[in-house]
């Protein structure tokens, strides 16, 4: 929120800065980072618990309410986090405007596809009896 002497009073009140989105990305990156810590730890434990189990057991565990909810939260938080992170990397390193635009779109497509595929699979496992 770099609001200096050169900005208008309205801009100062809005506090959004030159990117017009304020500190939203910064905040969401931190929010999802904090959420990711317990969720990823739980994810690792779930993964270890699933080692050496056959398909039927894996389906049963992944589809159980508590595990499914933890994994769904994990996917939502992780994909939101990685979309912002990759956007920052693209904005930092890609100078060409056209390439940047294409990559930013591809970033969103990739993240939404991964999120939707994972959520869909988990819901399928939960509702398949």
């Amino acid at each position, binding site marked *: 929120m770099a609001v200096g002497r050169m900005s208008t009073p309205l801009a100062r009140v809005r506090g959004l800065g030159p990117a017009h989105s304020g500190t939203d990305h910064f905040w969401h990156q931190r929010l999802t980072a904090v959420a990711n*810590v317990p969720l990823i730890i739980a994810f690792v434990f779930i993964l270890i618990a699933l080692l050496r189990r056959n398909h039927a057991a894996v389906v049963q565990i992944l589809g159980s309410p508590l595990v499914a909810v933890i994994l769904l939260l994990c996917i939502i938080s992780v994909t939101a986090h*990685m979309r912002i992170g990759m956007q920052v990397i693209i904005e930092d390193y890609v100078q060409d405007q056209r390439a940047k635009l294409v990559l930013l779109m591809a970033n969103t497509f990739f993240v939404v596809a991964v999120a939707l595929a994972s959520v*869909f699979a988990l819901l399928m496992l939960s509702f398949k009896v």
Partner: protein
Amino acid sequence: MTDVKTPVERPLSPHLFIYKPMLTMLMSIAHRITGTALYFGTLLIAWWLLAAASGPNTYAAMGSFINSIFGRLILFGYTWALLHHMLGGIRHLIWDTGRGFGPYEREWLAIATLVGSISLTIIIWVVGYLFVGGPR
């Protein structure tokens, strides 16, 4: 939007590589690299969940890939990247509170992140193999 003028050749500021590599700087780069690796690694997670939802045969096919040397190597690297990025992220959250910027603290935090991520990776894999018997 006619022809774009050829840009004037101005001197560029020397970038990262004129500096002596420091641990904090390498850790910053590692944070981005591990983040990128985890980003593409989510394909593996999505594949795994879809395979489980698809049925025993698809799940077994994925299992045989993960069980190959190549698959295990990817999984091992993924474990380290995940833990390193997580601990590096916690370091960033500490910095967000305004703490840990002193010359001693930031060095200590960098070493702790590295030692922590490597040892936790080894612990998880030892536990995975000794107590559970590894992937299958």
